[in-house]
């Protein structure tokens, strides 16, 4: 895949991108109440604590909903439409916006079990996606 469009991480989100490069789904977790969060927060949405740590998530989840992108909005979509957009509910209680791969669009249903996967570029960048479990 082309990588000129790949996001440039900063200190606040580097663990997420480094995790993806090494094949891990890494998310923020409140050290005080255990609440998992996505995307990046500086304060726990549940208890208000600022003691936020990065931790490896299970990568297991369920499709909350899905849709089929039929128009290119981004260079990554070139030559690969339709893209299956999805919101996936992780076991950790977090809902993430992502894409589904390795599945026919017609076979996707809300409630389907999925697991994390990574699209690696030749230079090591990785996009977090999900495929059927």
């Amino acid at each position, binding site marked *: 895949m082309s990588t000129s*469009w790949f*996001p*440039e*991480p*900063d200190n*606040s*989100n580097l663990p*997420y*991108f480094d995790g993806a490069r090494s094949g891990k789904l890494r998310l923020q977790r409140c050290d005080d109440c255990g609440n998992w*969060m*996505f*995307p*990046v927060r500086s304060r726990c*949405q549940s208890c208000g604590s600022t003691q936020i740590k990065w931790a490896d998530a299970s990568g297991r989840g369920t499709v*909350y*909903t*899905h*849709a*089929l*992108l*039929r*128009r290119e*909005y*981004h260079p*990554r*979509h070139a030559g690969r439409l*339709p*893209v299956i*957009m*999805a*919101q996936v*509910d*992780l076991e*950790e*209680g*977090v*809902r*993430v*916006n*992502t*894409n589904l791969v390795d599945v026919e669009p017609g076979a996707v*249903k*809300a*409630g389907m079990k999925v697991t994390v996967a990574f699209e690696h570029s030749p230079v090591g960048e990785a*996009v977090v996606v999900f495929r059927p479990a």
Partner: protein
Amino acid sequence: MSHPMNSAAAICGLGVTAMGRVYREAEDLAAEAVYLAIEDAGLKKSDVDGLLINAGVGNAVSIPLHISLGLQELNLLTFMQGYGSSAGQMIQYAAMAVANGLANNVVCVFADAPLQEGQRTGAAYAGGGRRNAMGSLYPLYGFAGALPMYALAAQRHMDLYGTTQDHFAQIAIGQRQWAAMNPAATKREPLDLAGYNASPWVVEPFHVLDCCLVSNGGVAVIVTSAERARDMKQPPVYIRGFAQAHGHDAGMANKDPAIHTPAARSAPRALAMADAKLADITQCQIYDCYTYTVIATLEDYGFCRKGEGGAFVADGKLGPGGGLPTNTGGGELSSYYMWGMTPVAEAVIQGRGQGGARQAKNDLILVSGNGGVLNYHATLVLAPEAA
């Protein structure tokens, strides 16, 4: 005993500019809408002592509008933002202000000019504000603006309840039939199921025709006390009840925001203030940024059970001649998109009995405003008679 705000205030003026590819500054469109509303109400500019301002996606109208308008002695002035719920919110705050003596005649105005010459319609709302790496992930996955989020919500409704593409089509077709009778509507050519199905996909399950228009324009309404409204130029449209409900469950896996919207908490309180039941409602003006929004809102308002909205609209009851006339001007899908001012403006026209060929039974009009992705909600209950 009835609620003190039931029929305490009324809408006495309406100003609607030309709509669509009107290449003018949003602030100028806002100013024109205000002058049109003042003239419509039979007021003088000096009678206006309150101004509430809301800007659309272009975010180009704010407090300085009062300087452009030469309104230098105001008792009430603010800029507000509640996205698609803003219009309903402004009218609610204006009603409370006039009922409690803070001001006499409050103008509520919305204007936007997202369309630029030579630019495609969809580009105006594709969104591009996010800057950091996490934010950059969204467009990479296809999450650009509100449209994909509503498509995802609609698909969940289909997966859970068997709602079909034909149900969404029914909304678009019914509203186009209304629009054909509205000289001010942008899209008036007939639409049938084949035409709907031939409309290109954007994010499936949404065709282009499941999505609202994008419009440049401005709308203003004037809220005054019920007592003053009775002696004014236009038939008063009384504000019988109102409420709001807001929430944002994004990112929380234990919530179901695609299906259960804040509309469910807003409508019962608005109806209670109006001392009315849902069965008393004779027409609806429902915020219809997408076809699915109408189904979700009608369900949450209680017109049918959750999940049955598709079947509820399938017989055409929302269209001309149907049992629940809804979005009688064509709505945001077919008339013009001025956020929450689209349903409000049509409700005022209908409440006055000025709907012409499309006039529907107007005893009690339910109006919704919806912002974000089914997150921010305002409800109004309007009527030509006071309680």
